[in-house]
């Protein structure tokens, strides 16, 4: 069906954006912010749920752009596009897994418009950057007329396409603590090699004991393990049971077996149009097995 054309305002500063979102119409929960538009524009036909009644265009909020280092924290503005991330030497140096994730999203056209904040707020379980953000202990700065607050990524996605955002609240910035000795791996199994939506997407992070000046013990053991996955549940999730069995262990064949088995037990994906539940469960476990195998060099 042809798209609807709801009223839109294009504020140029945050205060105006907050005000537009706090408008009574927005209080009804129906005004929707648009960033790069790669999700919202598709909703205008009304075939995938009710189209927005009014729209607040965030594209002119230049204060939400930019990739910077704030001490040991990597800070990305919510309007940072995937192309920005791909081109950022700062991201490439400090969080290459995020660059890898950005590269797998859509193709040039989508990467030029789609934003990190949009990926977060859209809350698709298949959002490809989201496991990276979870595995990296990211937190999100949210803003509204009431001021700013910080919500950790792991508390942000509360249900299928549900978030901790109030109806009048925006994602402003993404803060990612940079930890010494952290290794991170990203893998996406998608439907094809570009313009692809994930069947399983995951980020695995750990700190090598030997690289950590503040701890003692044998080098090579994994600490602060984070395993985050997308497309295997209603939200992006952390696999905490698997993280627990990996914590403090060495990347040996036994560890890999244990982690894969634990993960397969821990996940409860579903069949859908893109894949089967069992494929997702099996592939997630096999990828983790592979990543541990590669880390262990066996």
């Amino acid at each position, binding site marked *: *069906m*042809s798209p*609807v054309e709801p009223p839109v305002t294009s504020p140029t500063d945050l205060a105006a954006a907050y005000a537009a979102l706090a408008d009574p119409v927005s209080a009804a929960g129906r005004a929707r912010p648009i960033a790069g538009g790669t999700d919202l524009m598709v909703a205008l*036909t009304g*075939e995938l749920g009710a189209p927005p009644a009014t729209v607040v265009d965030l594209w002119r909020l230049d204060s939400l752009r930019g990739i910077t280092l704030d001490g040991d924290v990597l800070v990305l503005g919510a309007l940072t596009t995937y192309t920005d991330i791909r081109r950022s030497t700062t991201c490439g140096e400090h969080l290459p897994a995020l660059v890898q994730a950005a590269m797998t999203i859509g*193709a040039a056209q989508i990467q030029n418009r789609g934003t990190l904040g949009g990926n977060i707020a859209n809350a698709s*379980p298949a959002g490809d950057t989201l496991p990276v953000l979870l595995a990296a202990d990211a937190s999100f700065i949210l803003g509204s007329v009431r001021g700013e607050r910080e919500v950790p990524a792991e508390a942000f996605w509360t249900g*299928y396409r549900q978030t901790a955002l109030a109806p009048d609240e925006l994602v402003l910035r993404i803060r990612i603590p940079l930890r010494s000795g952290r290794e991170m791996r990203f893998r996406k*199994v998608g*439907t*094809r*090699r*570009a*313009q*692809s*939506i994930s*069947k399983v997407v995951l980020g695995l992070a750990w700190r090598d004991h030997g690289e950590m000046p503040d701890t003692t013990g044998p080098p090579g053991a994994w600490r602060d393990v984070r395993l985050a996955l997308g497309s295997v*549940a*209603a939200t992006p999730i952390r696999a905490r049971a698997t993280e627990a069995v990996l914590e403090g262990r060495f990347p040996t064949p036994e560890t*890999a*077996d244990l982690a*894969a*088995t634990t993960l*397969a037990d821990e996940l409860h994906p*579903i*069949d859908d*149009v*893109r*894949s*089967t539940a*069992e*494929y997702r469960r*099996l*592939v997630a*476990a*096999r*990828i983790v*097995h*592979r990543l541990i*195998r590669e880390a262990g060099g066996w």
Partner: protein
Amino acid sequence: MTTRTESLHALVVAPGTIAPGRVRPAPPRRREGPAKLTGTALYTDDIVVPGAWYGATLRSADPHATFIALDLDPAFDWSRVCVVTAADIPGENVVSSIKSDQPILVPIGGTIRHHAEPLALLAAPDRSTLREARGRVTARTVALPGVFDPLESDHTFASYTIGAGDDIEAAMARAEIVLEGEYRVGHQEQLYIENNAMIAVPTEGGGVTVTGSLQCPYYLHAALKRGLGLDDAAARVIQAETGGGFGGKEEFPSVIGLHAALLARKAQKPVRMIYDRHEDISATTKRHPAIVRHRTGVTADGRLVAQDIEIIMDGGAYCTLTPVVLSRGALHAGGPYRCPDVRIRARATRTNTPPNGAFRGFGAPQTEFAAEVHLDRLAERLGLSPLDIRRRNLYHPGDITPTGQVLRDSVAAEEVLERAAEASEFVRLRARTADARRRRAGSGSLPGSALRTDRERRASGIGLALAWHGAGFTGSGEIKLASVASIELTADGRVRVLTAATEMGQGTNTIFPQLVGEALGIPDDAIDLAPPDTAEVPDSGPTVASRTAMVVGGLLIKAARRLRGTVEAATGGSFAETAADYARQHGPTRIDQKFEPYPDSTTFDDELYRGDAYPAFGWAACVVQVDVDLDTGEVQVNEVVAADDVGHVIHPVLAEGQVEGGTLQAIGYATIEEIKLRDGRYLNDRLATYIIPTALDAPRISTILVEAPFHAAPHGAKGIGELPMDVGAPAVVAAIADATGVWITDLPASPERILAALTGRPDVAGPRPGESEPALPPAR
């Protein structure tokens, strides 16, 4: 990262049948290319029609139901819009096709047979009114139980038996080894990038002119005449620039064209019916899903003794072209191999899913996939290489097909096979992949658990396939069709080609002037093309079945020769030099050339399925190299060598384009293109969920064009469009098997199916094509 080095020109191989040293002039540029490249070519939705209304189709939501009533919200001002129901149809409520089973709109009290079935039509002067009106119409229905499994259907659209009948058991008993297998393929969407689109304009006296995206103007012309009760002149069809067809705009345009015309007639306004992608995928025809069962007897040294083949195709809710699709599928089901005793039993049944129809290959890709994979499995069982088992069985001149057709000339099975194998270094590479597979199996690193990875993550494989494809219409189709193509020498001395053969990207506009120019001895750019408009051009048959270059092109050459003879006899000079003078003296001259049966052909018996099924066959071989990710089952197709015999290459660039495009469609069919169904509804009904290959998924494709001319055609050309579609999928599956050691029997050979086979966990694969999806899980 490796750099691809793709050569700019395919190798054109001239076998001994072509005079050596023949000079090929540089091919002309695509005639409508500049318009397409500058954005000035007008596709249907680009055409501005002042005052046109917007049309929409109200569809069923039930796969099977009785249509009780159409409720119009009394709160809405219905005078603002036009509503068409079955009661408004002036002619027969039938979409004209092989059978008369498909209504244009389901009448009140009638039976709804699929979920996208058209119930009523709406048109409005603007889109927002149309949207509002759509929200105020409700169809009241009473649901009926649906049939979704073609094996459970009690309604058969068509059935055929070819060959040995009951003698097959005796023949099978003579075999030293018998192998059985069942192969399944699902729906495939044509996925032309331009959606179906039509604009209907009412004309004085109750007529209608429909301009649209279509392959076959005269199919829609016939449908309009019957559905609207119009005569030849009152119904007029014009093809706009058409953004791809692949069979998807063969018979379906009759549906959308009738709908647009009915709205235009009632509203007395021009009406635009432009599908969006979701509607196009949900409601239009697909490639038929099929279940193919083989039981094959061979000698110990790999010679075919008996083939017993059973085919069941899912026709969907209405017959459309299903009998012909099934027929072509059955006629090709044994593959391009001689076998003394063959029995092929084929049937197509009705299900409560949208009707299936024409798609490049037309039944043959389904059955040849099964035939090729089955032959490979036989070879594996016998310890023969895929190349050797084909060498031992492929057709040579003089061999006899299951219908009793003697293959006299233009038989290039061996040539395409050997060329493809040689160019791809099949033997050397397969030895290498076989070594790697043995090494992996013997390395002691076998996982032992489905959750455990192997030491090596990637496996490479190489596979090949061989196919034949009957050129042009099946059996006596061309004789019954009696196509006409015309050439006109206009009063001002120009030459004009008049055919209903359409351009949809394949190159009709470019090759016709080439063929005619060569026959008349004038340059191709001195030749004009009449617009594809039923008011101007004769019925030269549909643009389907790879028949355009062979059949219509052949008619044009004959017409051109006649015209040349007439002019040169009168003037005594060459056509090039004297045609203008001749035209000045004699006025316009038009030659109508009607199809005549090819000499030396045996009539095909449509009842017994005996005789010459096709005037000739094209031959194709394909070698595919893949990498399989053993962790995930993901397949990357890296290299393809395609060798296709097209009889005579008219335009190498366009011919290669056909091979490359068809090959990628086949690779998509083999690997990622899938439609899952639940209660007869397509789940993959958007471009976000129906996945086709991107440039990154596409392999490097090297094309070898082989020429084994079809001597009964004046230029020797056979079809090309469909050939590459038949070989890609089995070659991919063979390459996956070479890489992994597992045979995937269902298409697509998805990562799910591959990993299921690799780990011995069938639940990973999900349902097979034709199997019903489990109940809907909770939404997420």
